[in-house]
Structures are given as C-alpha cells and as structure tokens.
C-alpha cells in the first residue's frame, strides 16, 4: 500500500492540509470554530470566572468614546465605530482594515448584574466584565451525614 500510515510529512498530506486551510479560510475562520455568519463583526472571546463573565474583543484604532456597550436582559450589545484615519490619499495599495461601525450582539448564557458591568480598553483590546447575578453564582452545598 502506497500510504502505509498517516505520516503528516508525506507530500500528499501536506498538500491536503494546505488545501483544507485554503478552503476553510474562505468560508469561515481557519481555526475551525464557526460562529453564525454576521456581517463584518469584530470577533469576541468569552470566558467564565467564578464571579463574572468576561468578554474580550479586539478593536484596534478605536478610542473609548467610540465604543457603545449596553446590557439589556440577557443580551450584551457592543457597537464600535472606527473612523477613517487618513486624508489626502492619492491611492490605496492595500486595504484590509475595516472601517465604519460594527455592532455585535451576544446572548449571555446566564444572568448578570447590569449595574456593575465594567469595560476597559487598552491598546485596541476591549475587555468587558459582567459580574454574575447572585442567583447565578456557583454555591457550595454542604453535605451533612445523618
């Protein structure tokens, strides 16, 4: 048999991997995670701590007054406006950075305390801290032996 075992260094598998990467980059994120398709929304990472939910988005070139965050019920909506920076442009040789305004709405999996939501913007990274509502925090239950 020509391909005795899956040696990833064989040229055939390298070619197959390259083609996979090429195709997956066209239709969705190359990492494999496919969110529902939205129109040009900034990507978000969400993770959970004991006491809060953290949402991080990469929004380079945006100042803090150009970000609008609101929490209504269990939906977090983030609106980011990125203005055009340069004027007197003769020609664009490459244009890859999106400009304009983008909105992202995230459905939160648990209740958060909307009064204590905080957000920070450093070096183009927006971090939103959503403290969990009391009812949603994990509670240790002691087991008594009868």
């Amino acid at each position, binding site marked *: 048999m020509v391909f005795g075992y899956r040696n990833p260094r064989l040229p055939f598998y390298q070619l197959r991997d390259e083609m996979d990467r090429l195709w997956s980059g066209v239709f*969705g994120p190359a*990492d494999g995670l496919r969110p529902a398709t939205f129109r040009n*929304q900034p990507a978000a990472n*969400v993770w959970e701590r004991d006491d809060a939910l953290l949402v991080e988005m990469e*929004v380079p*070139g945006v100042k803090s007054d150009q970000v609008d965050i609101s929490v209504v019920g269990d939906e977090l909506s983030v609106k980011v406006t990125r203005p055009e920076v340069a004027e007197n442009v*003769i*020609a664009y040789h490459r244009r890859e950075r999106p400009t304009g305004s983008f909105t992202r709405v995230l459905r939160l*999996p648990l209740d958060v305390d909307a009064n204590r939501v905080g957000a920070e913007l450093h070096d183009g990274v927006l971090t939103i801290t959503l403290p969990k509502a009391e009812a949603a925090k994990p509670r240790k239950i002691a087991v008594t032996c009868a």
Partner: protein
Amino acid sequence: MDHETTLTKTAAEQADSVERTRSGRCYRPNVDILEQADELLVLADMPGAKGETIDVKFEDGTLEIRAEVAPRQGDEHGYLLREYGVGDYYRSFRISETIAASKISAECADGVLTLHLPKTEAAKPRKIVVSAT
C-alpha cells in the same frame, strides 16, 4: 459570494520560516497601505501590542514588522466562545527604492501601528507649470 463573515485573524504565512523562540501562534496583521503626496502610510492592526513590544526593521528593501503580544486570557473556566487567538504578529513587505529609508518613522496608538515612509525627492509628484507664449 457575500461578505458575511466575522473578521478573522490570518496566520502569518511565513510563520514556519520565522525563527520562533517563543511558543504560541503568529498572526498576520491587517494592513492598509496608502499613498499620499509625499509619503507612503502603512497602518497595521496589532491589537494588544504596545510601543515597546513592536519591532520594525528595514533591511535591503524589505520592511518587517514584528510584535510580541503577551497571552492575556487565563484559562480559568475554559471558553464559552472562542473566535480568535492571541499571539504575536509578523508581516513583511518589499519596499521599492523610491522610499527614503533613513527617514522612516513609526508610532503606535490603540493597537494600530502607523509607519511613515517618506518618498525620495525624485518620486514626489511635481506640478509643472505651463507658461503661455
């Protein structure tokens, strides 16, 4: 095909050939290259990179931008949603000789690196006045 996709990060194409002494991924920053009257402006999106961690090198007609980004996200409880990774940035360009290499300057604000590449005198557009005779 309509462009309904979340903005994604692309892996640096030369990531394998770049000497990696750090672990983690290397990404290719999105870049705008625009031409103004007396300089070329290169704007690179590198969120998470600060001025001190960015390295710009111009050598032999090739401009390289490199940024080190510290991992930000602890793995406290695992991710609920993970649409992008955090890693270093690298991109390189070939610059033509019409750039005055000694006068290249760079600044970084809010995760965007702005490079000013001034054109040499010969390359600037020059208005030629037509005199009526």
